């Protein structure tokens, strides 16, 4: 019989760097999960992904066991890495921080495709373009 799920925990943590400090400790601790076991498994699974931020969804079961899946890095993180910038614009109407070519948007959309609720690559590109605009990055042809 399938185990009863009691909740989900969504975190974004640097690859290979999970430790019992926040956000992992408080988030898993309040569900009574084995924090160190999660850290060990997450770090082993993501250690090859450099300094990228990795979204992870942890499924919490009634017996205090858990499983987790890691996702592709957030579109903003991938955009910033590709453009070599670290900071976006809080107010894109006033300040634009960089330009991104549509071809670069496509490359990121291809990476993000497995995690986006997108029918095709064009739809995925629109989502990534939205992330670019939110961060003050202008999309150019």
């Amino acid at each position, binding site marked *: 019989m399938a185990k009863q799920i009691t909740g989900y925990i969504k975190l*974004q943590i640097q690859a290979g760097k999970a430790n019992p400090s926040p956000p992992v400790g408080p988030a898993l601790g309040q569900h009574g999960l084995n*924090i*160190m076991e999660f850290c*060990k498994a997450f770090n082993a699974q993501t250690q090859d992904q450099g300094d990228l*931020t990795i979204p992870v969804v942890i499924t919490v079961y009634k017996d205090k066991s858990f499983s987790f899946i890691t996702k592709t890095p*957030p579109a903003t993180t991938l955009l910033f890495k590709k453009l070599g910038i670290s900071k976006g614009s*809080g107010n894109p109407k006033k300040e634009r921080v960089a330009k991104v070519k549509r071809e670069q948007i496509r490359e990121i959309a291809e990476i993000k495709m497995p995690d986006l609720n997108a029918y095709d690559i064009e739809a995925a590109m629109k989502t990534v373009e939205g992330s670019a605009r939110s961060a003050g990055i202008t999309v150019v042809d």
Partner: protein
Amino acid sequence: MPETFSHRPPRQWLQIDLTLPGELVDYVGHELTRITGCGVQMISHDNQETIIAYLEKDRDYAEARRQIDALVADLNSRLPQALQPSFTTLLEENWAENWKKNYRPSRITETITVKPTWQEYCPGEGEIVIAIDPGMAFGTGLHSSTRLALTYIDQLYRQSPHQPRTVLDVGTGTAILALAAAKLGAQQVVAIDNDIDAVAAARENIKQNHETGRVVCSATDLAELEGNFDLVIANITVDVLTALSAALVKKIAAGGHLILAGILGPEQARRLTRTLQDAPLTLIHTRTEENWYSLLLQKSP
């Protein structure tokens, strides 16, 4: 103060809870991660998301706090309704306490049972019991990588004609592997870890197991350790094992053994084996459990 932090003052964080429209989550999550240097938690509800970020109150706190206020002000200037972040102070505690309620004695090998320090357990004949309070350190005995390493240690002491007299445990965590070696017959065990919280947890466990005479734990760097050991154990992750491989091999006495664990999946096992291919080592055995791998190697006499 919780017992876990008797070796240092507890750390403090500013917890920032920020509820905002879904389309901004990606960007704001990135910015808060960049500013705080910590990850974030996301909670979805209706069409909104709450991001929970943590900023440690250390020497860079004032500048980071200024950047967070500037970020919120910038976001407010583009939104029809101002965000209402909440700021609270979070004091470090042993977040593993909750989980400990479910930690029970567990038979790992034919000989070794691991039990929580706070529970009574009556061992059977020939059974070796290791009492562990994990604190915030790795090594409860329940994880496959620890179980695999314990199985090899047990095997070396019960089946090998030459039992290791001296043992080095690198990245010891709770000291569970070091304690297993001591209880099985090692005369001198050196346990090291670069995490001072782990060293504190390990020392407490060594005391609880009455092994202070044979097991010594410190944060000494591997490169600074003197002498060779009949058995070297490292249950960490493959990137660390790879980085330390040359130093680990140096620490094994001629004819001694090396147990490597913390290896996830066959590809990581292959990669690590390739890293070691020019070392004077023979791969004796590979053991797997739930896609975790452990290697037993022997140095040339």
